[in-house]
């Protein structure tokens, strides 16, 4: 059992890590073409510039890049909200889905614009196929592309070059990176048995003569980009635990690979653009180390049986099976739970609410850090924030004014980085505090005691990490939840993109210094250790009291 579990993890994580290397190379080629737009090979850039219009012609500074991004995201939000609000009047609605409530529309549009895909609705219950594809799946492409574009700009800035043009980058990410990958994955999923139809639900008469409505739809296309773009919003309510989103063991593996593939490749893309592959290697290793620790914890704690069955004549050798699917094997659920939260994906392959208490802590840790691969593009950007803080402390320890890649890290950079990290803490802890102490939260719980607290904590964590998974028992389709998490998702999306770009903007105004034997090396194990320590102390420890009252309290009060 143990051997198989380890092999399984190695296959998924190791295999993806290997595949991320060539993909990172490809992404650098796609996102940061060396060719001049005038040459034969520059036709892509010319085409994208033609689509984008006059503003796509020249390089942007960080404020222009950012305002272009915000303008585009505003359009994303508006289009999505409009389709959702008008779905009952629009085509592709074979099952006649009615209008949605206003705060749910706000929450859903915010959720998909911010690449979060927190779902306070249930897809097969509430949405037309047009809403699913035209609003949500479209955002799954363009919101993911927004993240990749932002990372490309950040990397260019750190390389000492102009940031580039958002209107070009977004198209590169959409058309050259996400679209081909999504096509390949969607076909693989179709082969694995995932439906792809525009027909309405099938009505079956079961062997026992009961009517069963089987919801289906254009699932394969949707699931493919949901996984690749760290979106995570499922076609169906229970996401990838649903047999039609994830019919078998091998589709499960493919979908897990798809979760971490582009986030991993983003590290290499970043490293290639800044021209520092060894540095990328160190970052990759640190991220991987955190990922593996969380996976080990998760698989270990989930091997413990369902506590509630203790004393009953039930054979629990397979571990805690509540909320899990038999076809994924014993490690499938816990492994997925870590992958999906280490990246900001948020799709689920087992119900997180029903994970054992300490297993449930692992996804939360993943989202608190939000940088151990993280969302497409933005995970590496979040890691950049930790790097700034880590470099600052490490730089002093070697007796030099701290520098990162030759850029001096001074008061302004430290301030911006800390603000971004602080914002995440504020959204998670502040939101949880308000909802835990008021009926807004307390009245919506599906569980009592520490586990109920965990549900609130998880929801805000997920919103702020732009993750989108949930302790789904929470009755979160209420006005306060919709509005609060909607606001959190939007702020938590744009603050950690805006501030790092501002840092790069500030750095690019400085004299870049040369690196030597006396400057901080960002390429070795020592720096890796320093970075990991910074992540733990600055990123994770803040949440220790909350974790103590949630998963840890549940564990010590019930599991012994």
């Amino acid at each position, binding site marked *: 059992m143990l051997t198989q579990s380890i092999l399984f993890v190695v296959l998924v994580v190791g295999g993806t890590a290997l595949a991320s290397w060539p993909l990172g190379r490809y992404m650098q080629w796609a996102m940061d073409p060396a060719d001049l737009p005038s040459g034969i090979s520059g036709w892509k850039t010319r085409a994208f510039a033609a689509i984008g219009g006059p503003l796509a012609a020249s390089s942007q500074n960080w404020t222009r890049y950012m305002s272009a991004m915000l303008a585009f995201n505003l359009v994303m939000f508006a289009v999505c909200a409009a389709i959702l609000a008008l779905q009952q009047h629009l085509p592709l609605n074979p099952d006649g889905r009615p209008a949605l409530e206003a705060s749910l529309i706000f929450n859903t549009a915010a959720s998909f614009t911010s690449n979060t895909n927190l779902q306070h609705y249930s897809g097969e219950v509430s949405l037309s196929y047009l809403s699913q594809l035209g609003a949500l799946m479209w955002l799954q492409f363009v919101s993911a592309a927004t993240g990749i574009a932002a990372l490309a700009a950040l990397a260019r800035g750190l390389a000492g070059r102009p940031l580039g043009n958002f209107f070009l980058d977004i198209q590169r990410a959409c058309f050259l990176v996400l679209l081909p990958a999504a096509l390949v994955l969607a076909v693989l999923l179709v082969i694995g048995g995932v439906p792809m139809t525009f027909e309405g639900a099938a009505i079956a008469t079961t062997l026992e003569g009961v009517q069963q409505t089987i919801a289906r739809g254009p699932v394969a296309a949707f699931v493919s980009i949901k996984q690749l773009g760290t979106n995570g919003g499922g076609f169906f309510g229970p996401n990838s635990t649903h047999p039609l989103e994830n019919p078998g063991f091998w589709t499960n593996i493919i979908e897990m690979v798809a979760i971490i593939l582009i986030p991993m490749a983003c590290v290499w893309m970043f490293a290639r653009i800044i021209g520092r592959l060894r540095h990328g290697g160190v970052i990759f290793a640190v991220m991987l180390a955190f990922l593996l620790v969380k996976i080990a914890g998760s698989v270990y704690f989930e091997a413990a049986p369902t506590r509630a069955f203790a004393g009953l004549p039930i054979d629990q050798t397979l571990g805690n099976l509540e909320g899990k699917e038999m076809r994924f094997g014993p490690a499938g659920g816990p492994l997925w739970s870590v992958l999906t939260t280490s990246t900001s994906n948020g799709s689920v392959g087992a119900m997180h609410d029903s994970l054992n208490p300490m297993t449930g802590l692992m996804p939360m840790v993943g989202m608190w850090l939000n940088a151990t691969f993280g969302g497409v593009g933005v995970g590496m950007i979040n890691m950049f924030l930790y790097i700034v*803080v880590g470099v*600052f*402390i*490490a*730089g*002093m*320890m*070697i*007796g*030099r*004014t*701290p520098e990162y890649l*030759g850029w001096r*890290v*001074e*008061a302004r*950079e*430290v*301030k911006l980085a*800390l*603000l971004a*990290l*602080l914002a995440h803490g*504020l959204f998670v*802890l*502040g939101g*949880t*505090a308000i909802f*835990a*102490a008021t009926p807004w*939260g*307390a009245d919506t719980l599906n569980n009592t005691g*520490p586990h*109920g*607290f965990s549900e609130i904590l998880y929801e805000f964590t997920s919103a702020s990490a732009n993750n989108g998974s949930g302790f789904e028992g929470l009755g979160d389709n209420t006005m306060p939840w919709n509005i609060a998490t909607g606001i959190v998702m939007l702020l938590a999306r744009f603050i950690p993109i805006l501030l790092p770009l501002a840092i790069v903007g500030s750095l690019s105004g400085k*004299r870049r*210094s*040369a690196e*030597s*034997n*006396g*400057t901080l*090396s960002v390429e*070795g194990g*020592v720096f890796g250790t*320093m970075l990991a320590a910074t992540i733990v*102390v*600055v990123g994770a*420890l*803040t949440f*220790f*009291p*909350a974790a*103590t*009252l949630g998963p*840890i*309290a549940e564990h*010590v*009060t019930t599991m*012994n």
Partner: protein
Amino acid sequence: MSRSPSASIFDARILAPAIAGAFRKLDPRTLAKNPVMFVVAVVSVLTTVLFVRDLVTGAGDLGFSFQINLWLWFTVLFANFAEAVAEGRGKAQAESLRRSRSETQARLINADGEGTRLVAGASLKVGDLVLVEAGEIIPSDGEIVEGVASVNEAAITGESAPVIRESGGDRSAVTGGTQVLSDWIRVRITAAAGSTFIDRMVALVEGAERQKTPNEIALNVLLAGLTLIFVLATATIPAFAAYAGGSIPVIVLVALFVTLIPTTIGALLSAIGIAGMDRLVRFNVLAMSGRAVEAAGDIDTLLLDKTGTITLGNRQASDFRPVKGVTERDLADAAQLASLADETPEGRSIVVLAKEKYGIRGRDMAGLNATFVPFTAQSRMSGVDLDGSSIRKGAVDAVLRHIERTSAANGSAAGTAESRRELEAIATDISKAGGTPLAVVRDGRLLGVLHLKDIVKGGIRERFVELRRMGIRTVMITGDNPMTAAAIAAEAGVDDFLAEATPEDKLKLIRDEQAKGKLVAMCGDGTNDAPALAQADVGVAMNTGTMAAREAGNMVDLDSDPTKLIEIVEIGKQLLMTRGALTTFSIANDVAKYFAIVPAMFIAVYPQLDALNVMGLSTPESAILSAIIFNALIIVALIPLSLKGVAYKAIGADRLLQRNLLVYGLGGLIVPFIGIKAIDMIVTAIGLV
């Protein structure tokens, strides 16, 4: 170089005022300069008010609350104390400086240039001319416009040997507060009262005008940011606890908050800064700003003058190389004769070598009826004229030109072409070996070449190896030709050299290095060094230098010892390292503090959380009290380290980080576990809670 002895940290003369200072610094205006300690003071006031309220109503655990309050205030006081101790040490040093500057009288030269009148030193303005005679104190910083004098500069350098100051040239600057020992000088005042060198020094060492450096500001931002993060972490706890049906006393929240925020580094930050500046001053280097000290730590390229820094100031004769047909002895004999009256160190070394090698003794110049021909910039030769015979020694090209001239004048053969070629070959040979060739000619006949050797200072090679390990590139600046320079550069082990350097070359080199993203340090003394000193990121002017040089640089070395650049770099690095190390230590401490306080805090709600009490602290109260006591005491325990500075070792950045991460990171993780446990045992044993 002379180091002033450093006052012991716990010297009673410093301790007593420092304790008083710790209380005086409770002034909110003073506290506000330090965000972390200000926050601690604010919450301490809050808990004190709450304590007084409880005292009146009789509610709560008064004994526990009192003790927490007490230690909160101790935390603030310890921080103030650390700063006061650092300042006290500086003050002690400033005191001795100030004594030298007791009210001086100045003899102001009247506007017509005739006659003087006595005025108070403090009333002098920039541009005034004063006369200073033997025994008098120079009233203010200035430049000698006329005269030569020996000056005792012990007041600023601590060196009692007098130095010569003269008008014109590179030794014309004088410093207010120093004493003229002999002769007289006219001085044009260049600094108004209150802004002289010594005034600035006093201000610097006292820390009175200490401005926060860019790195210090950035660190303060980091600490303020961390403080905010922990505000968030603690302020949300009551709501969490309310959900769980518990309530957390304010005093416990405050205790958690204060232990989590980086009080250790916050408390010691200004002490570290003051002590860093102090170390530099003790080292007889005066930095114009704290920024300059930090910049020193960032240096990538060090420009060092060859003469005086890398080599001993004087070249020495090491070999006689005659041309064919001339014996070594003849050459030595002629050279010795030409040098007998030459008082330059080089000339003397020739006499010494001739005696050592061939036993040629000193001769009576007068008896030989010899007249000495001194060196002139024009002839670039010196020598001696005996009865009907003349001997010249000098640079090879100068000597050759001399032969041509004399032969053209008296019609004799201008030396054989063969001997000229041979001479040039020998000269090239010597140059390649890093020596300076000195040709000797007697009556128009080439005798040979003297090998003058630059003596590389002992131990300098090792210093350069060390610098390389620090990641610093050394560039030797010399007026020598490239061949000679290359040989000396190789012998000394510098990374690069700039030969036949003019001041413009120097400036260009600095600009080029900076364009490559390097920070450059150099030292200089002459007026023509001023542009380069100003351009360099760290420019160390020699105290013997001109006022222009001193104004252009951002540091002044009172000992005028160029090798000190290396130590200056180390002091700069040490300053930053100490801050970094204590920051790391402070933050790493948090892990243990969480494990001490968080279980204690929530144990009333979920008793099973005792499983998190990994240290096995005896009661929740003792756990919280121990953490806060540890948090306060660690400040005191680290005062010596913050004053002394973390030891710098030239082992390369990566290994340095590894070492400091191990000592201060891992140490910071482990020490509080042990410390808090120990304090808990004591607290429990003596029944404090």
